[in-house]
């Protein structure tokens, strides 16, 4: 296991998304696209071909009216830690284009390293990875709004959410410049967290008991980060992917949708 060299403790950046507050407005999706130079094309209705690092799913309880109910669930990359960094995608990448950072707990994706075999896409149980089937194009003057902090991708490679890691780097630059090594909780926030009109997304260091994410999710480090908050759950918990995105819901059917259960279970 690798150590960190950042003086302080290793971070484990994670997210708690309150599904009671999420209204499915889609701001997080667009906040992500506009922050990360995500391309777009004329027809985006084939969702298998549509690149959305952050995707809001619409769940329902499968019942008929009047018991029918819906819930919206935003899904970024889960930044799975697996067992000590053995994330599903990292372990299958033949090019070391994707890697688990023990210093921050974020799964990186290096576009120039990727050669597009898509093993990682097959391995990801959350469909959080996207393939560039086409070269991106920004018509008219739209290239002007591209952010220099994120490299535009090319055709033939895989891309995904990286918890706006460039924002961490910018925040660290500022901290170093001011003679600090550590960030305040609010200094590094992802674009979706910042935009969410509902304030449903909370982002921070799961290792830091003072951070809201830790206080809300109460991750149990002895059991692969399983949440101790009874309303909190993670997607496909039983796969052992040890994701860093926690969800909150007061509705049981929503919590149950997070995993696959046999009818006779529980």
């Amino acid at each position, binding site marked *: 296991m690798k150590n960190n060299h950042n003086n302080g403790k290793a971070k484990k950046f994670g997210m708690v998304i*309150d599904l*009671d*507050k999420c*209204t*499915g*407005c*889609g*701001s997080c*999706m*667009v*906040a992500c*696209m*506009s922050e990360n*130079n995500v391309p*777009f094309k*004329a*027809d*985006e*209705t*084939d*969702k298998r071909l*549509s690149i*959305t690092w952050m995707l*809001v799913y*619409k769940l*329902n309880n499968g*019942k*008929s*009216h*009047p018991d*029918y*109910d*819906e*819930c*919206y669930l935003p899904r970024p990359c889960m930044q799975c830690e697996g067992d000590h960094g053995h994330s599903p995608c990292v372990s299958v990448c033949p090019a070391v284009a994707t890697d688990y950072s023990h210093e921050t707990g974020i799964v990186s994706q290096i576009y*120039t390293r990727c050669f597009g075999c898509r093993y990682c896409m097959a391995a990801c149980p959350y469909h959080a990875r996207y393939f560039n089937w086409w*070269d991106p194009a*920004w*018509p*008219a*003057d*739209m*290239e*002007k*709004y*591209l*952010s*220099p902090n994120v*490299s*535009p*991708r*090319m055709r033939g490679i895989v891309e995904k959410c990286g918890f706006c890691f460039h924002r961490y780097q910018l925040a660290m630059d500022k901290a170093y410049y001011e003679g600090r090594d550590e960030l305040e909780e609010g200094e590094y926030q992802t*674009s979706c967290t*910042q*935009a*969410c*009109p*509902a*304030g*449903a997304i909370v982002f921070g260091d799961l290792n830091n008991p003072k951070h809201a994410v830790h206080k809300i999710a109460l991750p149990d480090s002895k059991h692969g980060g399983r949440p101790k908050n009874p309303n909190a759950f993670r997607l496909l918990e039983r796969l052992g992917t040890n994701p860093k995105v926690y969800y909150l819901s007061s509705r049981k059917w929503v919590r149950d949708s997070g995993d696959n259960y046999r009818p006779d279970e529980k």
Partner: protein
Amino acid sequence: MKIDRRSFLALSIGSTAGIHLTPLPWKLMDDMSIWTQNWPWTPVPQDGAASYVNSVCGLCTAGCGIRVRKIENRAVKIEGLPGHPVNDGRICSLGLSGLQLLYGGTRVKTPLKRIGERGAGQWQKISWKQVIDEISKKLSEQRKSGNPQTLGAICNSDRGTTSHLLNRFLTVYGSPNFLRTPSVQSSYEIATTIMNGSSGTVGFDLENSDYILSFGSGLLDGWVSPVRMIRAHSIWKDKKARVVQIEPRLSHTAAKADQWIAIKPGTNAALALGIAHVIIKEKLYDKNFVEKYGFGFEEWKDEKGQTHKGFKQSVLENYTPANVAEITGIDVAAIISVAKDFAKSAKPVALCGSGDGGAPVNLNEMMAVHALNALKGAINNKGGLQIVPNPDYILWPESEMDKTASKGIQTERVDGAGGKKYAQARSLLNRLPEVINASSESPLQTLLVYNANPIYTMADSVAVKEAFSKIPLIVSFSPYMDETASYSDYILPNHTYLERYEDSATPYGSVQQLISLARPVVDPLFNTKQTGDVIISLAKAMGGHIAKAFPWKNYRACLEKTLGDKWKTLAEHGYIVAKKDKAPDTASAKFDFAAQAVNTDSKNDAVAPADFKPADLDGDVTAFPLVLIPYDTMRLASGFVGTPPFVIKTVGDYILKENDSCVDINPQTAAKLGLTEGNKVILTTPKNKASVRVHLSEGILPGLIALPRGLGHSAYDKFLAGKGVNFNALYAPMTDPVSGLDMTWGVRAKISKA
């Protein structure tokens, strides 16, 4: 020495060996891998110094504060402005995509003059000087004919200096025909005028409410002030306020509500009165408020001494839960329990105006719901509706009028607003096509269109286009090539909201009195001009008293002068919150349950709040057995701004699939019609037909079909044009007999397999 085959082999072996003793292969391999990682056509964004510009979003009327990140002179990201009273750092998907509009391919880059047929897309570039010259000449000529009232303007707001300049231009020209795009606020304005006797606008203090009874208001679907509403929703969750959503389809608002009451569409007023019945019967209303401020709750006498039934008696007699249950399709028990919950809450509020609030509500429903607030004293109280005085910072000297102007301004408005029939209405844009199409010569000879896209947003697109084709001169100020701009004669492109100075006053629905200042985030990209400047130039070109009414050098000078000592603060902070210690509007501290203002016909209390009249939908029930209702989503803009590519990308494939709109149908209804998920069908209404796909949803009542608003554009670029169906093309408006506003909530329809 003989050079043979072997020598060549030796040479090539030597070369091969030699080349491997040089760095060439390794270096080339390295370079080639770098080359393949950096195709020249993949853009490399230029780095540089980052900076932020604070401004105001101009994509809807909510007026959220924005903070735009720039790298050198490029704008690269729009974020919410922290601390802003409307959105406090948060932002919606439309606001986030503003840069796609700024830098996108739908901009009008220079003034254009039509050379082909209207709408054929043939334009000639024209200089600003010449275009001002040509239009001012035409206007002068038109004015000389003695009918200055034939000049009209359409605008999305009557607030802010640009709208005021436009309105002032019309006034000195001699026309009263300043037409505002209608919305739910138009209905609220009329209701407060009638029942509170106040001309102020309604603010919603929802953050402080503890029980929100929403009659179809899409609080989480873009209603009035989308980001603020979603923020309020989170506050409700934290403090366990209760939200009850009454509508026939499970919108996002209904899905997030504590209770969803699936009501028969068009019967909201009956339910409101049923709830009032229970509250009155159980004596759960706020006696103090009703006695102190209320009029017409009990029996009352008019000026002639004639006695009228009070609101109380009418409601008790006609709207028993049993009656209401039959009209609305809701259980008696549910009606009673909602009424009791509402009445027993400390700070309840009742809201109406469906979807994103872009459409008005029929007056009966509005008054019935407003009466519920009065019963609980939720007017001008914490957590309720607040009647906010209109912004008053634009104080220009009265303009000098000549004879033509004084005469023209006295003529009745073309839409009849403020006239005998629709006395309370300020503007009735919805009536314009009907009025124009009914006359042989259009009563409007010239139409100026600012911040509006009527050809797309108005009901019955065919009739609207017919009406517009009868107007000889249409001038659009749109920065984008939208439907109306493409159908105009001249386009005088405005800067986008990210390139111009512009003030905006208290946003609709806001409790706080705000003034915000939009500032240029980037220098104008193209040969465009602030519409304020264009109006000032037009006025100056026309000379005489018209020029005199516009004494400012340019728009910027006008803005600075108008804002006076506020300018400095606004330029620094971007917004000002007016002091809250201003005494509430005393005129609005009353409530007329009898709505005397509209009950001039004293024999029958025709439009009393205590009244529900089922609306007769257009079309025959046997031919059109289904009812089509529109719905709004945060992921589609249905107003004067087209949905940008990023936002279209977020639209689910159950709303838009390839180029087809999907309609929600209950599986029961679909089974009866033999339809399954994804079927392509023809949707027919008495007005029009369209090809759509079927989406089965348990979240809609049987017998209904629902179509999303905001699709079906013919203008803009390939990212929006030609996608889906425009609901506005499928129905003819129903005019409310009292308010004059469009009160359509649905239209009869049928579905047949394609």
